[in-house]
Structure formats: structure tokens, C-alpha cells
């Protein structure tokens, strides 16, 4: 398989690249602004790039990086893999989020833009497309700069800086977390098998955020959990039945894997 990754510096792309190299896959890693003819000769194109305005401004076709990449892939005769988000599921339909339900986006601008983008990509790719709706992707995000300031990044940064993890939500809040290494393996599997489908990619298990903080502090050796608002917010998990039907042997992580991930992240942070 000849694989192109657009947006090579993103957190997930770097793990996909590393994982692909380990599997002996020929990878062309491209910057977010690579010319469209750079994907000529590829079997599969995966896009990770995103326009900064995506998080705050309404959808515009000319700022849709997924659409641009999908068109380039179609022109090159390649399959396209779009990394979408669980945020395409509206608030009332995300526990669990299921691929068959209408996905017009949640309350965030980002979620709504991705939902619009999914439709545009499907039309542009003319069937040669896999859309992956990713859960919260988790990994060693400490020290990562730029736009990505996910839940794990915030926990690790404040624990390292102040010895404190701050929650503006209840520790009982349940979300679906997927270790980035497993996410990378899943993306590569989809890139290789090229199903023409929309698939969730998460753990399929709701985990309490407080447990993650507990395990990270356990690995770190110490830390304080401060809760500024005890409301459960943004709870979700992804139904993985469709994914399992395509990839029955893919090992989805359970809570043990998340515990190990968190303890190891805490240890790495302590030793950093």
C-alpha cells in the first residue's frame, strides 16, 4: 500500500506515521498545504489537517481541508480516509453514538462543521471514501503546543506545572477514550482495507474521567484533584458494532488498557 498522510505534524498523524513505518508501509507524509498533485500514485490518502477557523467560524467550502484532500484523492484515483469526530453526533444521540443516527453536529462549531464536511466529502469521493468518527484520542500530549489542547493535554500540563489537575466537570463524567497507538492502528487498517463506510473509532467503553485523573496521579506519584464544577458534562461513548463487523479481530481496548496508559503517562511525566 502506498499511503499519503496530509497534516503530518498533527498528534495523531505522527503516531500513524510511526505505526505505518513499523509495519513496512510506504508513507508519503505531507504538510497541510501540500499541492493536490502530491498524492498522485497513492492508494490511500488520509487527511489530518484542519483550518484554524474550523473551531470558531461557520463552515466555508474553501476552508474545508477534508474536502480539498478528498478531491485530490479522487483525482488521483485513490481511496480517501477522513478523520471525523464524535462531535458530529448531537447531544441527545451520543450515549452511545451510532453511525445510523442523523449526525448534524453537537453544540460546538467544530462538530457542526465536521458534519457538513462529511457530506461534502462523501459527494466528492464518489464512494471511494471511509469516514472515521474518532472518540477522545489519548496519549502523551504533554508538551505539545499549538491548537491541540485536549483533555489529556490539559491534565498532564497542569499536573506537571502546578501539581494539580483541575476539572470543570464532575469526576463521574463518562467519556470514550482511545489510546493514540490503537487509534493509529485502526486508521491504518481502514486505509488498507478501504471500506466504503462511515465507522466509529473509539474504545466503545464509557470511562469516568475521575478515574483517569486518579490513575495519572498514581503514576505521577502525587497530585491534587480540584473540581470547580461538579456537573456531568459532555458525556459520550461510541457504539463499535459497525467497526467490529468490518474488523472483528481488531483488539479494542478495555478499561485495563486505559488504566495502564494513564499510569504510564503519569510515570513518564514524573521522569520528564
Amino acid at each position, binding site marked *: 500500500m502506498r499511503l499519503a498522510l496530509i497534516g503530518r505534524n498533527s498528534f495523531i498523524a505522527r503516531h500513524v506515521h510511526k505505526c505505518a513505518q513499523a509495519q513496512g508501509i510506504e508513507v508519503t507524509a505531507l504538510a497541510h498545504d501540500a499541492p493536490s498533485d502530491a498524492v498522485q500514485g497513492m492508494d490511500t490518502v488520509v487527511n489530518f489537517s484542519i483550518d484554524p477557523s474550523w473551531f470558531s467560524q461557520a463552515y466555508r467550502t474553501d476552508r474545508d481541508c477534508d474536502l480539498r484532500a478528498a478531491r485530490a484523492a479522487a483525482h488521483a484515483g485513490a481511496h480517501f480516509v477522513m478523520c471525523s469526530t464524535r462531535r458530529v453526533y448531537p447531544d441527545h444521540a451520543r450515549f452511545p453514538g451510532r453511525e445510523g443516527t442523523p449526525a448534524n453536529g453537537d453544540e460546538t462549531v467544530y462538530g457542526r462543521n465536521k458534519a457538513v464536511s462529511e457530506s461534502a466529502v462523501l459527494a466528492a469521493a464518489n464512494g471511494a471514501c471511509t469516514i472515521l468518527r474518532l472518540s477522545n484520542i489519548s496519549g502523551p500530549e504533554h508538551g505539545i503546543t499549538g491548537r491541540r489542547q485536549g483533555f489529556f493535554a490539559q491534565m498532564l500540563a497542569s499536573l506537571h506545572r502546578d501539581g494539580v489537575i483541575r476539572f470543570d466537570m464532575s469526576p463521574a463524567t463518562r467519556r470514550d477514550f482511545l489510546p493514540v497507538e490503537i487509534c493509529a492502528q485502526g486508521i491504518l487498517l481502514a486505509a488498507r482495507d478501504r471500506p466504503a463506510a462511515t465507522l466509529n473509532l473509539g474504545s466503545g467503553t464509557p470511562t469516568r474521567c475521575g478515574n483517569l485523573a486518579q490513575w495519572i496521579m498514581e503514576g505521577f506519584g*502525587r497530585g*491534587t484533584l480540584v*473540581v470547580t464544577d461538579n456537573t456531568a458534562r459532555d458525556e459520550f461513548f461510541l457504539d463499535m458494532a459497525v467497526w467490529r463487523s468490518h474488523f472483528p479481530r481488531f483488539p479494542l481496548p478495555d478499561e485495563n488498557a486505559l488504566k495502564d496508559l494513564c499510569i504510564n503517562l503519569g510515570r513518564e511525566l514524573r521522569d520528564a
Partner: protein
Amino acid sequence: MHKIVITGGAGFIGSHVVDRLSVEFAGAEVVVLDKMTYAADIMNLMDLLRPSTAELVVGDVCDYSLCFNLMRGADLVIHAAAESHVDRSFLSSIPFTQSNALGTHTVMEACRNAAVPRIIHVSTDEVYGEVLSGAADERAEMNPTNPYSASKAAAEMIVNGYRHSFKLPVITVRANNIFGIRQFPEKLIPRSIMALLQGEKIQLHGDGTNVRHFLSALDFADAIILLARKGELFDTYNIGSPDEFSNLVVAQMICSEIGLPFDENVQFVRDRPFNDRRYAISWDKITCLGWAPKRSLPDELPAIVAWYRQNINHLSRRMKWAQE
């Protein structure tokens, strides 16, 4: 009270005390210091971790600087952190001495230097050792018979030294076996409930005729609140219950509650290297302050079984993690 520190507050007994503190001393800052070992669970504090109620500090009671920093400005320190499972103490006793004796020493030293005006040290009735007849009052000599109770007795000796040498205002409490929800499934009651819920047999040490008194965690927490308000400094209080049952009878109660025949669901296993036949204490002193146990194991058992049934998946995972 403006600030209360409780060690071991994310564990079984500690979390029940935190529950009561947050109600009885509403408005006080409650700081929970817990090492978050296998027996602790952040779930025990889920409803309490919110602004102006409680915060969790993950750390070791053997860490002096951490303890001192937390205890500065505290009006009350409740020291409930301990390694507490007797069976584990037979297998690996050094961590018991570290956490229970050295940890208590560290907490007391931090309290002394932070000039904490009131400290409650949570000990156990097991420091008295076997009481084959009658009941031990607070003046009875300590005679611990296993590594766990020995480490708790050692802790008490350290506390006593601080009381005399530095006039450290410590109250020591010695309680019966405590039961309730949130107890890690290693002690008799939760272990037996979980065994039956998982389709396994209850395992009883020896012939199961050893006798214990069983005190509700809610009654214990009430006693701690009372002592926080009215307990005589430098004194020791037993906290007990009249509910005296053999392990066999407790197993029968659990089988009955779950609806399984006792004879087919109990397995007798090799006894501990030493297993006290009976513990018994008198608690007249705290009765004089106005406390009395209000709950009984037979009455509370249905709700306890229901809680373990409701949380069986989470607890099963924790049991597996504890074995790793």
C-alpha cells in the same frame, strides 16, 4: 471549622467520614490525602469533589513535607489512612509497618509542627488482641497478635509519645469490624457478597466460628463527628456495637439475603497463621458523650448487597487490578 484534613479519605471508612464532615461542617475546606492504593477509589468521593466541599490530594502519609504543607492551618486532622487487611499483613507485613507506624509518626510530626489543635487517630479494637470473655475498655493493655494489629499498636505508641512529650492534642479511637458499602472486597462481608454474586463460594477461615463485633460505617462516622466536637483531647475512645456474630453466621446471613443455600455455597479454607477467636470492647466512655450505635448488620445487609450488585463490574475490575 475552616479546614479539615483527613488521611485515607478515599478509602472505605475515610469516605464515610468525609460524607459526614461535608454535612456537619458544611463550609469547611475538606482536604482528602490519600495514596490511592488498591483499596481506595475516587468513586467514593465523586459526589463530594466540588468547590468548597472537598479536594483530593494524592500522596503518601510518609511524605513529611506534603503532610506539613497540607496540615498548616487545619483546625482538625483525622488520620484514617492505613493498610488494614490482616490476610495481606501475613503475606507482606513491611508495608503495614511503613504506612501504619511510620505514616502515623509522619502525620503526628507534621501536626505538631503545624500546631494542629485537634487530631483524631483511627486505630482498631484489634490492638487489644483476643478477648475471650467480657470486653476490653480503654484502659486494657494492648496485646496485638498479627502484623496488622502490631503495626496499629506501634502507631498508638508513637501517638502516645507525642501526647506526653509534646502535648499533642490527639484523640485515639478503637473501633470494631466496620461494615458498609464501598468496602474493598477482601474483608469477610464484601468478599463473601462478591463471591456469591460471581457464582463462587464463600471462603471461611478454619471452622468459621471466630467471633467479631460488627459496627456500621455510618455509626462510626457519627462517632467521629461527635469526637471532633466534644471528644476529650489526649483521650482514647472505644467505638463498638453489640452485634456479635461468628463468621459462619455472617455467611449464613449473606447467603440468605442473596437467596442461595448456605451448605452448597460455603467452602472452609486453611486458617490464618493465628486468628483471634474473639474481639470485644466496651464503649461506655463515648456513650457518656451521647453516642450509641443505631444500625445493625442484619438490617443494613439488603442495601449493602444491592450496592455490590449494582457495582459488580467496577468492583470486579478493581479486584483484578489489586491482584496484579
